[in-house]
């Protein structure tokens, strides 16, 4: 799609583009290419001398058991958060899609957590489940569960997942509700006339028609878990205990800052870039074609 009528200035369009291009080149392309370049270098301990080492950083990276562990952690974490937050949000959205009098009020009450910063969400959940003073940790301990997310890896993961799901429900709810409302009533009525009950109508008509929304949300949720949950993890567990909640993004941060291994950190950045570009490509390719409308 192109405009048929346009202006014919020679210089003006470049002037208009200039601010955006400067910002993007200085703060996006330059750092991104530096990350790629740095992933082939090794710096000495003081960062004074660096030498070209080819793929050594990558070899070192893929020889680290911790890196595979962070991949596994990321995979478990993303599938749990995506599955839970999508199904819970879909449940709420289908209820809010019924012709309720208070539907508008419920919508407002459901979507505001979108505005809560991930780090703040992490602090809120940590406060509830902090082993010694958490309001919800005490009853757990009372029931004989030795609840301690500071020491127990499984507990730490559960807590981070809960906080991440809590934060993401509002987003998924909003898009599911919009998706549900765009399904023509006539299709559902036709199902009802043929004698299909509410459950049958949902699984055979509504859910398949909702698949573009679901697939879009799936990709968005995976990207969310990869990047936006950094704040939650840092606030709740700091990647611990013993690295059990260190996702790939968290490891980029931890290795570069605490470990000072910039080459290794850059190599990890590049691996992440490839993953994100692949995810985006999948999104563009499949959202438009393969999913049923």
């Amino acid at each position, binding site marked *: *799609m192109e*405009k*048929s*009528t346009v202006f014919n*200035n020679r210089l003006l*369009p*470049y002037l*208009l*583009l200039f601010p*955006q*291009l400067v*910002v*993007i080149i*200085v*703060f*996006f*392309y330059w750092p*991104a290419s530096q*990350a790629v370049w*740095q992933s082939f270098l090794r710096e000495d301990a003081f960062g004074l001398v660096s030498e070209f080492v080819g793929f050594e950083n990558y070899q070192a990276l893929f020889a680290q058991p911790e890196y595979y562990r962070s991949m596994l952690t990321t995979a478990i974490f993303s599938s749990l958060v995506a599955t839970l937050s999508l199904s819970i949000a879909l*449940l*709420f959205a289908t*209820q*809010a899609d*019924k012709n*309720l009098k208070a539907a508008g009020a419920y919508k407002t*009450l*459901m*979507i*505001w957590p979108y*505005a*809560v*910063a991930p*780090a*703040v*969400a992490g*602090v809120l959940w*940590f406060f*509830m489940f902090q082993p*010694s*003073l*958490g*309001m919800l940790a005490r009853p757990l301990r009372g029931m004989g569960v030795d609840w301690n997310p500071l020491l127990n890896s499984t507990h730490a993961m559960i807590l981070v997942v809960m906080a991440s799901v*809590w934060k993401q*429900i509002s987003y998924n709810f*909003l898009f599911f509700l919009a998706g549900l409302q765009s399904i023509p009533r006539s299709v*559902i009525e036709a199902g009802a006339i043929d004698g299909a009950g*509410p459950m049958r109508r949902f699984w055979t008509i509504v859910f398949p028609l909702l698949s573009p929304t679901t697939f879009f949300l799936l990709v968005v949720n995976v*990207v969310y878990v990869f*990047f936006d949950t*950094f*704040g939650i993890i*840092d606030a709740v567990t700091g990647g611990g205990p013993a690295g059990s909640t260190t996702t790939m993004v968290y490891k*980029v*941060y931890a290795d570069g800052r605490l470990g000072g291994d910039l080459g290794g*950190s850059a190599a990890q*950045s590049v691996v992440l*870039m490839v993953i*994100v570009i692949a995810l*985006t490509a999948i999104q563009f390719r499949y959202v438009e074609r393969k999913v049923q409308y």
Partner: protein
Amino acid sequence: MVEHRPLSDFIAYAILTLGVFIVAFPVYLALIASTHDAATVVGGRMPATPGSQTLENYYRAIFVGGSRTSREPVGHMLMNSLISAIGIAVGKILISILSAYAVVYFRFPFRKAAFWIIFITLMLPVEVRIYPTYKVVADLGMLDTYAGLILPLIASATGTLLFRQFFMTVPDELLEASRIDGAGPFRFFWDTLLPLSVTTTAALFVIQFIYGWNQYLWPLLITTQDSMQTIVTGIKKMLVTTDELAEWQLAMATTILAMLPPVAVVVFMQRLFVRGLVETEK
């Protein structure tokens, strides 16, 4: 509706009420904790009703700061958050409305290339290139400055795509009419296109304000002085003491203050928010 069953409505209300409860509960607890004194909160037997220390806690959090952890009062952090959030929103709107205008309303060599150069930035969030970006900002002497907090976060294509999409829906007749009236690119932009873009701009502002306010990793890295930190990064630092010593009632008051502005934006500008969210994701 297809059929109307009272039972189905009842179930819907029950499930939604449960949902609202789950969503609100963590915040309710934080709110309660921010009204009690330190001993009540740390004792772990906090009542479910508000206490009497509300004013004192919020006053201390905003103006005085904690006593056990040496840190800045929150009032200053709120100001930093506000400046960087507004800077991010306004900065992004400015650079992207101009570049979208160039891409849609002009024909020039490298137009497609320029568009793709901008478009590709959609793919990589700042978290991926965090240290190289840090180095660039450090080399430019922008650590601990508002420019350093703002500029790297506006280097993305979302705004440009949004405005481009909107400009494409503006009828060509408007441009033809203004040209007949003798309007040049400046007058057309200022008198015709900008007034039409008000809603789109406001929607983008709402989304970018929330995005900017909630930033965590980037401000954490580039602010070394306490006087430059934002409120979202400040909370974490209040809790980095041994747990028994952390002043939870102040931390929770800070948490409430940190979420108040963006939540208010979502609640009071819900229509713009929803529009912005749906359209930036297209």
